[in-house]
């Protein structure tokens, strides 16, 4: 996720990852080993092979993530333990409330261990979504739609972002569908470039 972040070209990053270059350089992400790497060694020896990630500082972030995971392991046993209070599915408003209680607790711990990237709400939501939790990572397009229909007053700002996710989760509970499906519909409606493939061109012509 760090490799793909900050507008790195996703097709090129994917191709690089598929070749196993990252796995090789970062020792198959074995936490103890990675946490002891000097980022400069990787940059000096391998930057040409991984430069599609755009920023050299991401190498340090990956190594710092490993260090933070080590701290979590020492203090809490495992990262998985920290996820145990966050519901994997949403069936009621109480589940949504439990999700946010668990999210806030997890975010605090990520801050305490100085976890790069994933101590921010957006990236933490992205991580949780990626590992199967019922949330979304609101795209700017989704935030625009959220503003248009009055979920939030502004497209930007952490409070607005979290409020959009919560409303989408509550809607998901009400309709018994996954938040990620509601997210897809909002992306299509908002005209996100990738999502436009799912409706006829006339959809956007009629919307004008």
């Amino acid at each position, binding site marked *: 996720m760090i490799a793909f972040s900050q507008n790195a070209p996703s097709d090129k990053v994917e191709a690089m990852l598929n070749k196993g270059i990252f796995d090789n350089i970062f020792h198959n992400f074995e936490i103890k080993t990675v946490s002891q790497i000097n980022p400069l060694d990787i940059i000096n020896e391998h930057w040409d092979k991984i430069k599609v990630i755009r920023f050299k500082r991401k190498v340090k972030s990956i190594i710092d993530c490993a260090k933070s995971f080590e701290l979590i392991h020492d203090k809490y046993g495992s990262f998985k333990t920290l996820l145990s209070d966050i519901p994997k599915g949403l069936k009621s408003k109480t589940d949504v409330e439990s999700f946010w209680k668990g999210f*806030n607790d997890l975010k605090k711990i990520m801050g305490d261990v100085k976890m790069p990237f994933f101590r921010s709400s957006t990236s933490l939501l992205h991580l949780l979504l990626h590992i199967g939790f019922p949330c979304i990572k609101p795209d700017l397009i989704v935030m625009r739609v959220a503003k248009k229909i009055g979920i939030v007053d502004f497209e930007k700002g952490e409070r607005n972002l979290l409020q959009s996710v919560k409303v989408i989760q*509550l*809607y998901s509970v009400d309709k018994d569908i996954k938040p*990620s499906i509601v997210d897809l*519909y909002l992306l*299509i409606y908002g005209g996100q470039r990738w999502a436009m493939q*799912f*409706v006829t061109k*006339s959809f956007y012509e009629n919307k004008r």
Partner: protein
Amino acid sequence: MANRIFDVIEGKKLEKTFLDIDSIIQKVDSSRIEPKLSEEIEKR
């Protein structure tokens, strides 16, 4: 913090928002390209 946000989004505002999302889903569905959209929904 969570409770405060729930207070803000309770009641009528949420009800109207849900109707707006219903409408968005209906509009998208009326122009959906199949089987592409169903396949993407399935993936999620």
